[in-house]
Structure formats: C-alpha cells, structure tokens
C-alpha cells in the first residue's frame, strides 16, 4: 500500500537518513528562493548607491519627441509621458524608495521597540499606561494615521518617513513587549538576579539581546510594508514630488495610463513588488533561523 501512493513526498518513506536528506533538500529549495531574493535586493541597493553606472539615461532628461514609447532595445522599459527613460527613472527612484523603506523602519522600530521594551520590562502601571497609549494608536488604521500625519506635516520625504514610521510603532511595541515578558520569566533571568545583578544590567545583557530577534524579523519585513504604505500615500495624493520621483509616486502617477501605455506604471509597480517580495523572503528565512517555533505574530 505504501508503494501504491509512492514517492510523492519524501517524508513518507521515513527513516532518519531519509529525513536528513529531505531536510537538506528543503534547505536547498528554500535557499534558491533566498538567493533570488538576495540578488534582487543587491541589485536594487546597487541602483540606489551608484545609479549613474546602471541607468543609460539621465532620469530627468525629457525626450519630448518620443513620449510613451513601448519598451525597446533603446528604452528597456519604454518611455513615460514626459519622454523620460523609465528604466533610468526607476533606477534612480530606488534611492528615495529605499530611503522611505529603511528610514521609517529604523525610526518606527526604535520607537516601537523602546516603548515595548520599557512596558514589558517595567510592568505594572508603566506597562498599563504605555499599552493603553499603544491601543489608542492601534484603533486608528495605519494608513489613516499615516495620511493624517503626512497631511499635518506637509509634503516632503522626511515627513513621509515620519508618517509611515509612526503608523508602524504599535506593531513593534506589541511584539517587543510580548517577547520581553516571555524572557523575563525564564530561569536564567531569575538566576542572574539571584547573583545580584542590577535590573538595568539584566535588561541590557540578558533580556534585550534575547528579545531582539523577532523585532529584527519584523523590521526586515517592515521595510517592504513601509514602501507599500508610502505608495498608498502617493495614491491618496499625499506622496512626495521630487525631481526624481520614488517608485510609489511613479506608480501612482502612471496608473491612469495603464490602458494606453501599460509600461509606464507596470515597471515601477514591479520594482516595488519584487523588492517587497525579496524582503519578505529574507524576513521569513530569518524567522525560520532565529526562532523555528515562532507562532503567529502579534
């Protein structure tokens, strides 16, 4: 009977050696995802660092006699409605997009992480107070919070970063707090307390390092989420307009051309999607490696 259903999955055959080879294969498969993701991210980061080496045209050069040209060998991604080479604009646009992604994760992650850590470690009324404040932030959907803050601060790259960062704080705070609480209860903490370590020392040397990994995983994925939120703001009319637009702005402003010149918004859209996708793959992999028994977040 076992042979009748044969070999569709490796694990059925059982046995420790089989299981071992299977694990290796799973690793290999997962890693080819990882390698792909790594290549995408490396390329995009290279675009942000040295765009002039990669882009064939200036991102601001408007070839007004060749607007909305379909992709060709001269223009890999075609030209947009200004007559700009879309490939070059996307390459240069990676700068602002990555800046929005990374900067808002750093700001939001640090702030959220700090709130969560203090709440979790201090406990008591500090915890209650901070977590109620966090609840208040959570009751307002993130995109609305970002929308309101971006509206309040006005347009500008840093303001977008701040808006996206604030809207991500509650998520980081929650996960950090949960992690700190679970570590606080472990025996090695009690052990170091019994040998007379100060609470700060315990926190700094033992609790924090052990609590960081889920935050890092969330931050990795958060880079992608931040870019998506930023593009949502562009869609709702609160993006930034800089000389070289970021991907969200490109996608949002090109969307009206989808039925007449599909390439204008498709390539910025793909750039966002592939980057977020790659970041997610890496985040997943980090999660597997750091904490294999990790349950649902939040």
């Amino acid at each position, binding site marked *: 009977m076992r042979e009748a259903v044969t070999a569709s999955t490796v694990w059925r055959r059982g046995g420790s050696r089989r299981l071992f080879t299977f694990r290796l294969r799973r690793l290999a498969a997962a890693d080819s995802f990882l390698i792909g993701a790594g290549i995408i991210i490396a390329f995009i980061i290279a675009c942000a660092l040295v765009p002039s080496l990669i882009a064939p045209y200036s991102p601001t050069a408007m070839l007004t006699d060749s607007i909305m040209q379909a992709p060709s060998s001269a223009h890999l991604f075609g030209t947009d409605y200004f007559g700009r080479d879309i490939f070059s604009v996307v390459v240069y646009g990676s700068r602002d997009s990555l800046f929005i992604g990374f900067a808002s994760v750093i700001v939001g992650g640090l702030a959220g992480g700090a709130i969560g850590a203090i709440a979790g470690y201090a406990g008591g009324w500090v915890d209650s107070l901070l977590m109620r404040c966090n609840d208040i932030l959570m009751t307002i959907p993130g995109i609305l919070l970002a929308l309101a803050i971006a509206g309040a601060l006005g347009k500008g790259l840093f303001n977008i970063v701040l808006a996206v960062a604030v809207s991500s704080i509650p998520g980081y705070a929650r996960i950090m707090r949960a992690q700190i609480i679970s570590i606080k209860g472990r025996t090695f903490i009690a052990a170091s307390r019994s040998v007379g370590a100060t609470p700060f020392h315990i926190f700094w040397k033992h609790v924090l390092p052990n609590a960081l990994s889920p935050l890092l995983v969330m931050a990795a994925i958060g880079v992608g989420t931040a870019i998506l939120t930023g593009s949502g703001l562009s869609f709702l009319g609160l993006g930034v307009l800089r000389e070289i637009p970021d991907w969200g702005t490109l996608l949002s402003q090109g*969307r009206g051309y989808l039925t007449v010149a599909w390439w204008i918004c498709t390539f910025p859209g793909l750039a966002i999607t592939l980057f977020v996708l790659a970041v997610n793959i890496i985040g997943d992999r980090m999660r597997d490696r750091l904490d294999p028994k990790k349950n649902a977040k939040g």
Partner: protein
Amino acid sequence: MSRRKPFIQSAAVLLVLALVLAACGSNKDKEPSAADPAQSANTTNTESASTSTAVQGGELTYALATSPDSLDPHRSGLAVAVRVIRTIYDSLVVQLPDNTIKPWLATSWTVSDDGKSYTFKLRQDVKFQDGTPFNAEAVKYSYDRILDPATKAANAVALIAPYESSEIIDDYTIKLNLSTPSRAFLGNLSQALLGIVSPTAAKKYGDQFGLNPVGSGPFKFVKWNQNADIEVERNPDYNWAPETVDNKGTPYLDGITFKIIPEEATRIGSVQSGQVLAAETVPPQNIVALKDDKKIQLLGANTVGLPYTLFFNEERPPWNDAKARQAVQLAVDVDSIVKTLYLGTYERAWSPLSPGTFGYDSSLENGVKPDLEKANALLDELGWVKGADGIREKDGKKLTIHYVDGTPNREKRNDIAVIIQQQLKAVGISVEVEITKDVRTVVNTNGAYDIYGNSQVNSDPNALYAFYHTPAPNGKKTLSRLSDPAIDKLLEQGLVEKDDAKRADIYKQIQHYLIDQAVILPIYVFPYTVAADRSVQGIVFDTLGYPIFNSASIKK
C-alpha cells in the same frame, strides 16, 4: 531533482510576470499617436446634436469625477456639484455662446441709468418641483438667502456681489438693487450657483436643504447615496427651458443617475464596459485612445473665463522685474508642455482670458515664442552669471523660482511643474517645486511663492479684477500681487463701461499689458470632456461648459 528546482521557481516567477504583463499589454494596437494637435476633443462638440426625433424614456447613467459637496446652489463650492445643480435649478437669465444674455425665468428686464438697479419681469407659468409657485417673492428670497450668514453660502456670495437688496414691485416684477454698477452682474445671474430655490422647501429643510434640493429645473431630485450616486427624475411639468435648449418641454429622459467614480481608470472603464452610459473628465491619453472606439463618442466644450495661468508673485524679487519674468516667458516652451502632457487634446492658452470670453484678444495668439538665446541674454544683462552647477548666481544668491502647486495632481498640473523645472534648468534657473495641500496658507495668506497656477470658469472678463487689481488696504491679496494704477483704472472702467465695443477694447489693453510685461504665463484652456456610449444623444454644454440634459435621449 533538487537541481531542477531553481529552474521551476524562476519559471513560476516568469509565469506570474507574464500574466501581469498580459493583463496590461493586450491592446498595444491602441497605442496613442503621440501629440497630434489636429486630433482635438473639441471637434466632436456638435456630433451629438442629433436631428432625428429623440427617443422618449430611458435612464442616463453619468459618471462624475468627484463627489458633490452640497446640492444647495448657494452653499456649494465645487464645480462637480454644479453639473447636478444645473439639472435641478433654473436661473433668471441664460448666457449664449456669443456672451449675450437672454430670458429664462425672467422674460425681460431693464437697467437703470446709473447701472445700479435691474428690474425683471418674470414668467408667470413656472412652479417649483414641490408645487410652490415661482414669483418675485421666490427671487427675493433666493438672493437674500445668499447674503444671510446663516445660510453658510460659499461661492455664491462672491458671484452675487454687488447685490444689495430686492424690491417686489408686483407678483411678477422685481427690482434688484446693487451697491455699485457691475457689467458682470447679469452674466453672473445666469450661473447655476445663483439659481432660484423653492422658498417653501428651503425654509422647511433649513440646513438640510443641500440634501433635499428643490428648484424649478428640468429634473427633480430623488435620492443621494453618499459617495455612490445621485438620482434625479424628469420634471413632468417642465415647460420653460431657455433658448439655448432645443427641447423646451419636459426632458426626454426618465431620469439621470450621477455615479461618483473618482478613479480615472475605473471611470473610463465603466463606460467602455457599459456599466455607465457617460463619464466626465476624460484624461487626454484616453481621449486619444477612445477616438477609434466604435462604441464610444467623445463630447466636450472648452470652458471660458481664465485659462490655467501661472502667476508670478510681483512682490518677490527678482521676479518683480519684468525683464526677469520675460526671460522665463522666453525659456518656457508652453507648446511643448501642452503637447506632451495633453497630447493635443487641450488648446494652448495665449491670453489671460480664454477664447470665447467677452473681449478675448485673438491677436495675442502665436505672439510669444520660446527663444533660449534671448532668455539667456536678458538674464546676463541683469547680472545673473552661471555658476559651476549651471545655475545662475548674483551676489552669492542662486537664481531660483519657488513654484507652488496644490494637490492632487489635477489636470496634470504637478506635471507641468516638473517639465518647467527641466526647461528652466537650461537657462540656469533652478525651480523648487512645492506641492501643498494647504494652498490658502502658503499662497493666499503667506504669499510664499514665485509662481502659482490657477484657473477660473467665469462668464465675464471682469474675472480679471480679482486677479490683477490692487487690493483694498485690508482686502484679499491677488494671486499676481500686481499693483499698477493704469491697470487698476482699466479694470474699473471695464466693470462699468456700457458700450460693448469700448468695453472689449479696455480688456484687450489689459490682456496685452499682462502678456507684454510677462505678469503671467497662460498655459492651457481646460476642455470639459465626456466619453459617452454612441446610443446617448443630445447632451449639449452651456456657455460655461456644464452639461445640459434637457434634450438628451438614449437611442434604443
């Protein structure tokens, strides 16, 4: 087996990519023939004025680009609301395309010698949709209502100025008194925002009148589903259409459903897929693509008043110097901007007034031509020297323009800023673009701009007054911040001059001055465009470019 996996994975990725691309790529044959100025939306203007007898009945679905704010004409501040308001309310008079004023709810009128009082004879056969009779009392009530602060009236307050009071002479004769004479007044009375409301209903609903509108127009309000649609139905008693309309009686359509569809792709897609019969504000790229569509017709009309114009702030150096502004005027290639962004579907503007507005000076057309050499020479002459980064400097200051525009990117106005930024770089001017949500503070209050663009739909050239006349000491600043006694005098004369030929001449002088001194850069004339199914007939546009549905019908 494990060796094949990367291949399978990349194949899967490619497959998804291919699907995404196929989703958007399958109509490559509809690629726009970029920038063909001959293909103008406006040429299709008369196409739907059908000669065959119209079909009775049917429901027209008409997609609006944004949600109206209020259907109370006196409270509304949005042009989109006027499209609906115009179907529900009538005005005292109507303006023809040649700018003459003709009767509507008023049959005739006289103007006093001092130009400060207007006496109207009113139609006696009109009643509002709630049965209230239309009479002098209703007119007085409507206009006084606009001035009453409790009404919270918006744009109507500005339009009705300098109206002061009404005297009811008899049931069907009314005298309107103005505080100062105004040649623009009669034209303004033709606008939908000064429509006559049913006094009974307005009193009954109070604050809620905008949600329960009652007028005397060809269509009756039925229902407003927030953010979804507004329904109006035929007013069976309607029998008093103005001469701009073929069908003087009750409309052919049973009703109109205005659907609110903000997203461009969705709005135009809804016409193509037949979910609605007509959609307004068609983006240029879609106009070009829809030209060959057998199922769709394009309708439209250019709006009158002030075209989309970039105003220099005359108070901020160095742009308070005419030579500096002229350099910009010569360096900006407006033709290229309009052709690139609007693909030949918008007309380029040449004057501070739109063609069709009273007094428009067509001799300005083709007057300004881009000339980079001359622009550079002018800037050199002023002592601005190109620095290492290609940007001109003088006394350690860079030559910059702070260019402010509002959000969202309405009619691709933000994109104009992007192109001008590149064009001016070529002559060594650096353009900082600021896109703000809060135009009122940045522009109107703080005046923190060198260039700001705006347009205004208006029935009279007196519209220029609010943009170029020196403001009263505590008055509202104008966008141009211009202060020139000669222009002030001309604008004041234009407001009261009774002789049409003289009046037109006054406005021509003003137009010439504004262009010669490069006070502004006129950019484009906005056409109101509608994509409609071929079965829709008889939609026409009034002088201001608003759609009129009295004669509209749907061919079976």
